[in-house]
């Protein structure tokens, strides 16, 4: 029997991603549940996503489009939710293999001091995610993760805004990048202090068992 809270959370956030116009046509999102994951079907339309568009897959039996999600969940116990999306400002940067630096405080806090582009295979993506929760994937959008789906979703929004700022600032003048030490300090404070209570509340609300 499916966990109704997790199903409802995935449907809610797929709709939010569609409303915020930060997804393309191949987007998928997933949440961990014990030794399995709940994941949206490959090619499902996020704007009209319904409960039956969500599959439950055992992490050690995942194949095809689901394999990347399972590999990341297996490699990173701290990750509870993943978004693989194609936001407008991210997709072209992923094509050219860019590294997005922290040009805004909210990126430093929620995403980290940089967001790099990984080769498009599980092993490379897991390596690029080391010490981070997000990366661009060469010619394949971005992968963001979080303790909760809300955190992974917020990462998509913040990363897309940072990409927009990074490109626009370079064209109209200059990029002023936040000092690496200060960026890491902000990330630490966000993870252990600012967001902790909210994430704990969200875990329960999103159906973590």
């Amino acid at each position: 029997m499916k966990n109704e809270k997790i199903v409802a959370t995935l449907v809610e956030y797929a709709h939010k991603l569609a409303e915020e116009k930060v997804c393309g046509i191949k987007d998928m999102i997933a949440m961990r549940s014990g030794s399995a994951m709940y994941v949206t079907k490959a090619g499902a339309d996020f704007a009209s996503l319904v409960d039956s568009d969500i599959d439950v897959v055992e992490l050690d039996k995942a194949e095809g489009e689901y394999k990347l999600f399972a590999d990341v969940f297996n490699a990173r116990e701290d990750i509870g939710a993943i978004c693989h999306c194609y936001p407008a400002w991210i997709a072209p940067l992923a094509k050219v293999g860019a590294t997005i630096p922290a040009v805004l405080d909210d990126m430093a806090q929620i995403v980290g001091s940089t967001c790099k582009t990984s080769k498009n295979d599980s092993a490379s993506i897991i390596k690029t995610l080391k010490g981070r929760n997000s990366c661009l994937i060469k010619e394949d959008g971005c992968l963001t993760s979080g303790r909760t789906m809300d955190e992974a979703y917020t990462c998509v929004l913040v990363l897309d805004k940072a990409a927009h700022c990074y490109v626009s600032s370079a064209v109209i003048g200059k990029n002023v990048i936040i000092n690496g030490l200060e960026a890491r300090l902000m990330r630490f404070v966000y993870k252990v202090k600012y967001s902790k209570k909210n994430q704990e509340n969200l875990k329960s609300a999103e159906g973590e068992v």
Partner: protein
Amino acid sequence: MAWDKETELRLRQVIKDSGVNLLKENLVQGTWGNTAVRLDEDHMLVTPTGLDYIALQPEDMPVVQISDPSIWSDGKKPTSERKIHAAIMMARPEINATIHSHPVYCSILASARIELPVMSDEMQRLVGGSARVGAYGLPGTKTLKKGTVEAMTGRNACFMANHGVFCAGKDMDEAFEIIRIMEKSSYDYIKEQTLKATGQSTYSDELLFDYFVSKYGK
């Protein structure tokens, strides 16, 4: 307390509505913004820290002492940026409502640390001149507060370096008019500068990105 219960209830609803309206007008992402409204000379209501604007209730808004923002009562834990809201209200008695947020086009100028020139008569009327960029400081620090207060001198809005925008009005309606004109003026400036850099006559996101790749891409 120098305010009556009826005023407090009305202003609690004003704060609640301000958060929802920031979301509706796409002027904030998630919980990443905060607003304040003055109750009297030394007290203000602010939004709580890190909580969803839709779920927040009017009674969740804490009362914060303007002269010492570490003191607060009622409601939930106030935003860590309350010191900036308090410093502006302390320095500017005519200001009764403040908004701090991170809308996209304001964030671009904040990240590039570019002073926004007056782009229209409306911007001149509402902001009071160009929008300066306050000195960079980590969130919640004295440096950030000092930089914001200095950049707001004689103005009703400023950018906070690599962070966002701060707006102040005689009431929340005016503070919203100011943040709207800041976002529109920032967009107009970016469009103007992009066309100038590219030598093109029609602006689009594709134009901006293609120029970026041709200049900085691998």
